């Protein structure tokens, strides 16, 4: 019987396992389907990781390497090349691995750290032929950075998520010509710094409020048609631009990978596509926790690390101190302009000093006020100079404030006029 089984050996799983070990759990197992730990960080060879956590700028492999080294100093067990098939409600974890075959392991707690997957062409239904040369940005990143293949020479990128922007620069440095980055929304889905250092630095045009309306080509992509869209994101006839290219990269969103979570009967929040979680990242199934991109898609690995350490410590507490008394939970409601919040429920009795709350806005906002209200009363307000859907926001709600809440808590954002 394990104290904790962590599913996934990427940044979330590594941080959670280390934190749980430090908090006193001594039978901890990480199950990873790849042949090495580190997850997607291994292919993210660009720098910019770790500025919050390590206070220095690291590349993805370096960031992963630090946690793999930390893990080595613990007694956490790792099973590589092993796929989890099922998590039972009784926390029995079914897995199949190259070296160990089919095993069922029991655990006192389980931490879900499976990360996310990319949305594909099928998910966004782009019309046209079905030739070779259409890749998700992350797949192209793996080909270029780990396997040594350049997927194409003349490239259009659909979507301005961070991976797409990073790949625009990466393909350019490897000798490909990136013709355009096309974004259906009127704003970019990626971080501003990536627009600057990946597109502007290399004179790659960004077409906002545009989308790919047709893919042409028999065996290989030959052309893509890009059209301007109106406010309802409908293509405007007559606005078509034709790009001669051999490759289309898609950076059109990430979906938390929650097949195991759903199968286990754990409640899913349709807004995050991740498990509904409490303040300590515990899911609706007691003793099962979720953190990192499987819970909600993050922009920065540093926040994945911090969240996963909290989840790992919470799992340790659950094992060492028991489930604790049943406590009433406050629901966190997404108010005006807020797409989702994590956590979705807060048990004030479990909050020691403050509860960190993460959320995204649904449009670009200038100087704004984040209002926290409950029962028609304002509990707190926070100021921000600007907010954007591509940048996750967070606030800390002190325990004293939560104790004053009357029923649900609503988080809303309103723009304030300058002056």
């Amino acid at each position, binding site marked *: 019987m394990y104290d904790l089984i962590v599913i996934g050996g990427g940044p979330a799983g590594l941080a959670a396992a280390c934190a749980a070990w430090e908090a006193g759990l001594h039978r901890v197992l990480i199950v990873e389907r790849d042949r090495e730990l580190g997850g997607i960080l291994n292919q993210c060879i660009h720098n910019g990781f770790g500025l919050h956590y390590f206070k220095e700028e690291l590349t993805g492999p370096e960031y992963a390497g630090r946690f793999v080294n930390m893990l080595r100093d613990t007694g956490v067990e790792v099973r590589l090349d092993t796929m989890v098939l099922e998590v039972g409600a009784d926390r029995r974890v079914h897995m199949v691995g190259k070296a160990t075959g089919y095993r069922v392991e029991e655990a006192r707690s389980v931490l879900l750290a499976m990360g996310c997957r990319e949305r594909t062409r099928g998910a966004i239904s782009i019309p046209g032929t079905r030739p070779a040369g259409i890749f998700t940005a992350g797949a192209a990143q793996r080909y*270029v950075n780990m396997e040594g293949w350049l997927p194409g020479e003349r490239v259009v990128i659909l979507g301005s998520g961070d991976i797409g922007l990073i790949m625009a620069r990466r393909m350019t*440095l490897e000798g490909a010509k990136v013709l355009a980055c096309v974004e259906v929304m009127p704003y970019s889905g990626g971080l501003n*710094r990536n627009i600057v250092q990946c597109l502007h630095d290399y004179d790659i045009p960004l077409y906002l409020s545009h989308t790919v309306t047709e893919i042409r080509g028999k065996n290989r992509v030959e052309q893509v048609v890009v059209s301007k869209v109106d406010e309802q994101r409908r293509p405007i006839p007559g606005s078509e631009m034709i790009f001669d290219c051999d490759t289309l990269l898609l950076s059109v969103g990430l979906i938390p990978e929650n097949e195991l979570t759903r199968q286990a009967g754990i409640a899913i929040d349709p807004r995050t596509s991740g498990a509904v979680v409490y303040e300590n990242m515990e899911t609706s199934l007691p003793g099962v926790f979720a953190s990192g991109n499987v819970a909600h898609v993050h922009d920065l690995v540093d926040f994945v690390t911090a969240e996963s350490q909290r989840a790992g410590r919470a799992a340790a507490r659950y094992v060492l101190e028991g489930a604790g008394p049943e406590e009433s939970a406050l629901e966190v409601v997404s108010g005006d302009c807020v797409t989702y919040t994590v956590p979705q429920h807060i048990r004030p009795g479990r909050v020691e000093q403050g509860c960190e709350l993460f959320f995204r806005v649904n449009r670009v906002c200038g100087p704004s006020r984040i209002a926290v209200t409950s029962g028609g009363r304002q509990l707190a307000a926070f100021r921000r100079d600007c907010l954007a859907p591509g940048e996750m926001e967070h606030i800390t709600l002190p325990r004293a404030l939560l104790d004053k809440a009357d029923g649900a808590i609503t988080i809303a954002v309103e723009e304030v006029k300058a002056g």
Partner: protein
Amino acid sequence: MKELICIVCPRGCHLKVDEACGYTVTGNGCPRGEAYGKRELTHPTRVITSTVRCTGGAYPRCPVKTSGPVPKERIFDVAAALDGITVEAPVRLGQVVVKDVCGTGADFVSTRALPQTDEAAGGA
């Protein structure tokens, strides 16, 4: 007055740099933003990350970065300096792959450890 988005950290502060007034930076959230704003308008630099061919390891590419920032106008020369290079596993983290790349004073260093595979070790 020039407006920039700071790329030092993910916060992406909106900087205003006054070229006429000794490159005074406003809008920065930290001292690194001030340094970036000045540098970006006087002699912009970037850290370059790429990969280099690798034999004998689990992957045919080893990720590398410049050990410090290099002049922005040299980015393509610096990246091209990796073209003819092959490293052999085992590769250590931080191992110098190209010394003083293009005379910039920065080295290309490995950003991960790549152990030798069993097959490569057995074949030797």
